[in-house]
């Protein structure tokens, strides 16, 4: 047994987040850890990678009892962690990042650049990539950055690799490439702890599955023959009957019409209409222009050509503020960077966009604010102990609910959702789907940009597929299949 964890327990401020959890990892095995946000997955990872120490319980490596008091010690023991947001230095080159802190030295004094570059190139080649090792990391796409993080782990001769949602922001092709890499590591005897929300991957690449719920170990099983429905039942603790609410088919009047919208190098000739009570999906591979289009609709960037009509009136936004005045709302894919005020209470995070209606002579009506915030909390069932609690203490799914709630408080009529369920668990996901459903029933319009095809198919009245900045296909709900979307998105005309 490569790694064995016995009765690990950890609590923060009296709240037990891991309760006597057992876990083991064999050599050359991919062991998935599944569970909702807040189930204890991240805490478990933190304990193994030396970010935190357990309150109780033992960690055995090769049968020897070890303590992992720091990340440095974890690295020394051959444990590498690849996080969702890669911990790379954007302004350094690939080679510098891979060897950060362990640069090969010339005369024990100067960095041996040529050797570093050679080594980096070798490792990248091994992974099937051919970047130039002197490229700056900030110029790489997210998946490429992840590859660099993996290369960093390999160069450290790691024996246990922890991957925390590695595919969360990857396209299908990039995922395939990652899975091939994982196969190679397996054959070399590396043990991989794989954390994911995407159940499909479990069947494809994992050998065993451990499911956690509310900080407790639920089950460990062979992945073979463990079907998705069963897994969900274990994760949620009850049978999930309606994963997706019914798709709205009846739509109302036209809300928005976009004609010939274009921005150089990002998207061109975008035409579509959106009706009241309609969920319009945008599919596409990474960099197909969907996010950029969302930003343009919201006034975050200016467009070069074309026009937007909102309720038959031509609008042109110079800032998100103007878009919000027209009752637009945007939930960005990156809630940490572009959404949350992490040190502010949940209530203020909820009301920030609706303050225009909650003030009198510039003074905030606090009573009204509190009551609006509370309404949103209850409608979305945001789990927290107190609306005055800082949002940073909430789990990812609940934070995302707050991002939705912001537009509920602002009383938006159009919701632009860019990857609304990125990195949140199934329970929270299906709750958000219900919220989306309720909103469209009130006659709101929804634009959903997502790389999760099953989400688009399960949710949207219509799906527009983008490829290299153009809309290449329009698919009604009843004809939507993953195959059709994928072939259009990759530029093969159906």
């Amino acid at each position: 047994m490569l790694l064995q964890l016995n009765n690990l327990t950890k609590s923060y401020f009296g709240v037990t987040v891991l309760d006597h959890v057992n876990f083991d990892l064999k050599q050359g095995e991919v062991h998935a850890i599944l569970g909702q946000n807040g189930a204890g997955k991240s805490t478990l990872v933190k304990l193994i990678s030396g970010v935190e120490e357990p309150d109780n319980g033992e960690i055995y490596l090769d049968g020897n009892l070890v303590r992992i008091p720091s990340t440095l010690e974890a690295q020394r023991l051959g444990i590498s962690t690849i996080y969702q947001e890669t911990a790379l230095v954007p302004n350094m080159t690939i080679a510098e990042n891979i060897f950060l802190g362990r640069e090969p030295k010339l005369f024990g004094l100067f960095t041996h650049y040529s050797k570093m570059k050679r080594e980096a190139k070798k490792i990248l080649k091994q992974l099937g990539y051919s970047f130039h090792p002197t490229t700056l990391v900030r110029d790489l796409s997210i998946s490429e950055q992840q590859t660099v993080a993996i290369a960093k782990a390999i160069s450290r001769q790691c024996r246990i690799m922890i991957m925390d949602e590695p595919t969360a922001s990857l396209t299908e092709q990039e995922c395939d490439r990652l899975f091939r890499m994982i196969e190679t590591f397996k054959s070399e005897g590396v043990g991989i702890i794989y954390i994911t929300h995407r159940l499909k991957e479990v069947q494809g690449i994992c050998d065993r599955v451990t499911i956690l719920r509310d900080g407790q170990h639920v089950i460990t099983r062979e992945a073979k023959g463990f079907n998705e429905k069963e897994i969900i039942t274990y994760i949620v603790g009850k049978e999930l009957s309606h994963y997706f609410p019914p798709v709205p088919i009846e739509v109302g009047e036209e809300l928005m019409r976009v004609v010939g919208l274009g921005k150089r190098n990002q998207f061109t000739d975008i035409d579509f209409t959106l009706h009241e009570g309609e969920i319009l999906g945008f599919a596409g591979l990474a960099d197909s222009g969907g996010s950029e289009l969302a930003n343009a609709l919201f006034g975050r960037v200016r467009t070069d050509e074309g026009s937007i009509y909102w309720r038959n009136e031509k609008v042109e936004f110079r800032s998100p503020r103007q878009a919000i005045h027209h009752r637009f709302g945007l939930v960005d894919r990156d809630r940490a960077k572009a959404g949350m005020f992490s040190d502010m209470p949940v209530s203020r995070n909820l009301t920030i966009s609706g303050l225009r209606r909650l003030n009198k002579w510039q003074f905030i009506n606090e009573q009204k604010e509190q009551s609006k915030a509370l309404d949103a909390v209850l409608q979305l069932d945001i789990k927290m102990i107190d609306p005055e609690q800082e949002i940073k203490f909430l789990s990812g799914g609940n934070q995302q609910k707050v991002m939705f709630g912001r537009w509920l408080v602002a009383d938006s009529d159009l919701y632009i959702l860019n990857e609304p369920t990125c990195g949140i668990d199934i329970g929270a996901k299906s709750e958000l789907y219900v919220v989306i459903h309720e909103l469209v029933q009130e006659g709101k319009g929804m634009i959903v940009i997502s790389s999760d095809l099953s989400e688009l198919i399960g949710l949207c009245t219509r799906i527009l597929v983008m490829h290299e900045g153009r809309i290449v296909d329009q698919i009604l709900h009843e004809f939507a299949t993953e195959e059709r979307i994928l072939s259009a998105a990759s530029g093969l005309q159906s």
Partner: protein
Amino acid sequence: MLINKRRMQLTHLERIHAIKWLANYKSLASMLIIFVIASMTSHYFFTWENMVNIVRQASMIGIIALGVHFVVLLGMFDLSVGSVLVISGTVIMASQNVFGTDIFLSMILGVVTGCIVGFLNGFIIAYGRVPSFITTIAAMFIFRSLALWYGSGGALNGNYIRYTELGHGSTWGIPNLVFPLIVVAVSAHIILTKTLLGRYIYALGQNPMAASLSGAPTRWIVITAFAISGTAAGMGAVFETSRLNSISTSTSGIFYELDVMSAIVIGGSNLKGGKGSILGTVCGVLMLTMISNYMNLQNVSPYLQGILKGILVLVILYRKSRKG
């Protein structure tokens, strides 16, 4: 039913609020500790005259710090306040001599000058996207130089002799300058905690991108914050000139920006923006003043006092960096 019950649960959490409330008063607590230690070790420290003295000394840095506080909450700097003070002071003095304006009009002109300079700073930062550090350093040079040129490097005197009654006089035993200081502190507190502008300032300081995407008028906020900072420095000029009925174009306001920044940091504000309260800044100013007053009483050379200030700022920033 269930929802109502949950609603009740969520609204009855006073106990947690009380704990948070105490945590917010860390700077007040540290100030009181310094106060108690100083009172116990020096006989003269805790006397009415000395208390009045401390408050009078604190009023100058205090009024400026209240303005700069807005800028610091945005995660920006205003290093021009010393120079704004001297140019506003020059306007106050010169307007009396050149145009023969009434003293009240001169004071207003001085404050307006500060406001305009702050507005210009903010405008360049918001629309030119020049970092505030650079912009305000430039303003620092430009306006100091302008004042020096006008006053030929010397002092400018006013001609209304009773003006010094404002700076030196007292009402009901309390120095006159303390009253405007309290009014400004209370209004600043109200602006920051009760108004849209205040909410937006905290939001912008914490996460500029999220603030813009939530509909905060970001440029307007930046400009307003700097205009407030400039206005406060203009009021500082009134304080300064009312002491001696003159302004020294070469020495008035020198290093004020640094004293102000130290006071704000000691008061618990985060230089990265988004965190800090007016009460904290007021306590920070009082702490600095009390310490230097105490050292004067203990016959520590004034030349050495910078060392203690420096160490104090270092210790506080060090503790913050350990926490964050």
